């Protein structure tokens, strides 16, 4: 049992003794109550004294002391002790409630890995993660957390990646796979080689993002801080007014002690604790809750904005679609068969690293000695000579560049790659991207949050954009966008003063748009520095469903913060009015002050509890 609690209990007991016995000898009575008083208050007296030395006169401790000493002066010994006792109990309970909230929130945010099993030769040395170098070999045993981003070098296992993405399905990993720090090894022991330093690893970035999220204060918090600065001195001055003006008007002798008492109650009410503690706590809870779902919000400022979003602009490739290209159709425009067209194209693409090449069969078997003079014109196309015949594969612009007469086929299925033999086009292949799995449900959830204005923006052609938009239910499209077009159109969408616009992209190729929008949301890419640096919200699990979840959490957080503000202010105002009218007792006032803070803190915990239940 901690010292504070012991002091409180001891003091309470002595207080009760004094109240029950009601000794008529005044100085014995006084000693009993003074004893009770000093046991619980000596630390408060020291603090108040220190603050006076620093010229801090509006300190809570001092005010409580003045109030309670004032009570002693008008011979209300019991009341004086009760004031300081209730204040101490209140502070104690507040501290406990705050501790509980902090713990609840920290459990949501994942803990820093505290050690790494470094393999040197055949020995394993337990090392601090920050001391591990790139290329070091580590052992990860069953149940252990991966401390640093690495690649599997021995063994196979499956991981719990929920601390990174909120994803509860285990992820299988084998030799050669990259695994991010923060995941937990659920299977048998694996040996890995580190690819980054500890401070550059995923979990460190996520943790530092969350810890620094307190820097970006919301407007609400800024207002509360300003309010608190003015509130206490103003109430103090009002207390002085209440203490001296009415007696001056009504005659000093009989009314001074009454009004002094009321002024003292005023002092008790003058602490804005409930507001300054519970509001930051609610936002902190919001950020922590969101992080549990793999949604990393960089500051309470962004929670406020996220709650207000009424328009969302989606980038297409990589955000709405998987960003993985597939062959949709092969068409012959000559006597060459489709199979042959596909085969020749696959041979050519096997030399390329371009994302589009991934759609082709990289394992195709052919005689490499027959293929020479491979050339790639990045973004346009590739060509090579197969058995002394030159082939070109690429967009119609590529064909034009190589002086090949081309078509301009508008395909809604995807991008068209023409294949030409020598200088004649013999056919084409359509490469398309796939929609992500949960898009329709995700958009439905967003509509349910009363966000009706959804926009799609893409560099692809209008036909592709239109067909996808129709399929998923987005009515506004900007197609054929170059990067500068995207920025221009974003600003156009943001022109309406009532619009709060969120932009959702991959965080790598659309930095200017992310930065310019009211809320920049990047999907996945927790490894990418630019995504973390330039976006306001990072959805680590790359799941479109998280957008609606994030907005829901933000709105609940704001709701709870508002409840706390209204509740605290109302109770304070009522307390001030009642104390002026003489209805409010001093200890009731403390109860109101501290009780309100305690309740406000508990209210902030509600968010975490509720989100736990819906999971």
């Amino acid at each position, binding site marked *: 049992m901690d010292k504070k609690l012991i002091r409180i209990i001891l003091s309470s007991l002595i207080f009760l003794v004094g109240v029950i016995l009601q000794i008529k000898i005044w100085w014995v009575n006084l000693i009993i109550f003074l004893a009770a008083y000093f046991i619980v208050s000596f630390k408060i007296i020291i*603090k108040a004294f*220190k603050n006076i030395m620093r010229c801090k006169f509006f300190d809570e401790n001092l005010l409580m002391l003045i109030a309670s000493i004032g009570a002693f002066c008008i011979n209300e010994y019991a009341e004086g002790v009760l004031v300081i006792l209730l204040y101490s109990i209140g502070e104690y309970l507040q501290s406990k409630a705050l501790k509980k909230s902090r713990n609840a929130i920290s459990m949501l945010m994942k803990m820093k890995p505290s050690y790494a099993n470094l393999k040197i030769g055949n020995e394993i040395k337990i090392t601090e993660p920050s001391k591990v170098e790139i290329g070091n070999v580590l052992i990860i045993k069953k149940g252990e957390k991966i401390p640093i981003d690495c690649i599997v070098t021995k063994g196979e296992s499956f991981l719990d990646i929920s601390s990174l993405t909120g994803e509860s399905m285990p992820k299988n990993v084998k030799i050669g796979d990259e695994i991010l720090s923060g995941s937990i090894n659920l299977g048998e022991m694996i040996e890995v080689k580190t690819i980054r330093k500890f401070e550059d690893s995923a979990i460190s970035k996520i943790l530092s993002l969350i*810890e620094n999220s*307190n*820097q970006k204060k919301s407007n609400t918090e800024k207002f509360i*801080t300003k309010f608190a600065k003015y509130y206490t001195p103003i109430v103090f001055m009002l207390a002085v007014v209440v203490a001296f003006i009415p007696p001056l008007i009504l005659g000093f002798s009989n009314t001074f002690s009454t009004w002094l008492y009321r002024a003292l109650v005023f002092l008790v009410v003058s602490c804005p604790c409930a507001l*300054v503690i519970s509001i930051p*706590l609610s936002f*902190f809870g919001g950020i922590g809750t969101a992080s549990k779902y793999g949604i990393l919000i960089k500051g309470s400022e962004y929670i406020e904005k996220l709650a207000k979003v009424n328009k969302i602009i989606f980038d297409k490739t990589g955000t709405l679609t998987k960003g993985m290209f597939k062959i949709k159709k092969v068409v012959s425009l000559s006597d060459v068969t489709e199979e042959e067209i596909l085969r020749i194209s696959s041979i050519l693409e096997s030399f390329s690293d371009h994302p589009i090449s991934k759609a082709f069969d990289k394992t195709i078997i052919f005689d490499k000695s027959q293929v020479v003079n491979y050339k790639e014109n990045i973004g346009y196309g590739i060509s090579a000579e197969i058995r002394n015949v030159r082939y070109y594969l690429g967009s119609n612009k590529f064909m034009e560049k190589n002086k090949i007469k081309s078509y301009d086929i508008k395909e809604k299925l995807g991008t068209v790659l023409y294949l030409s033999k020598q200088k004649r086009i013999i056919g084409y292949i359509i490469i398309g991207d796939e929609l992500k799995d949960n898009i329709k449900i995700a958009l439905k959830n967003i509509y349910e949050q009363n966000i009706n204005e959804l926009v799609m923006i893409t560099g692809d052609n209008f036909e592709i954009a239109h067909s996808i938009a129709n399929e998923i239910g987005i009515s506004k499209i900007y197609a054929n966008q170059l990067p500068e077009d995207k920025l221009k159109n974003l600003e156009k969408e943001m022109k309406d003063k009532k619009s709060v616009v969120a932009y959702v992209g991959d965080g790598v190729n659309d930095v200017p748009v992310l930065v310019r929008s009211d809320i920049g949301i990047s999907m996945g890419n927790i490894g990418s520095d630019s995504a973390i640096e330039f976006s306001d919200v990072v959805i680590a699990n790359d799941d479109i469903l998280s957008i609606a979840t994030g907005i829901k959490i933000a709105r609940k957080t704001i709701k709870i913060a508002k409840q706390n503000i209204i509740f605290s202010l109302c109770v304070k105002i009522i307390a001030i009015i009642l104390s002026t009218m003489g209805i409010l007792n001093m200890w009731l006032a403390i109860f109101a002050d501290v009780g309100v803070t305690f309740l406000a803190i508990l209210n902030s915990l509600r968010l975490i509890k509720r989100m736990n239940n819906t999971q």
Partner: protein
Amino acid sequence: MKVIFKIEGLDCPVCASELDNELLKIKEIETVKCDFLTQKVTIETKNSVDLDDFFKICLKRVKKFDSDIKLVKE
């Protein structure tokens, strides 16, 4: 250089900003931010410092400010 300590017993944001002002009086400190929610003190020092010595200096200041607040090296 950036130094982070853990701080326990800080329950009020008003106290946190007062502690900020108090710690700023230490000459090696450029900026300081005490956070009562994450229970961390983030300090940016003007030059690099010896961690143990610096911790002792900060610890003394904090104790003088409020004996109930504990500073812990991470």
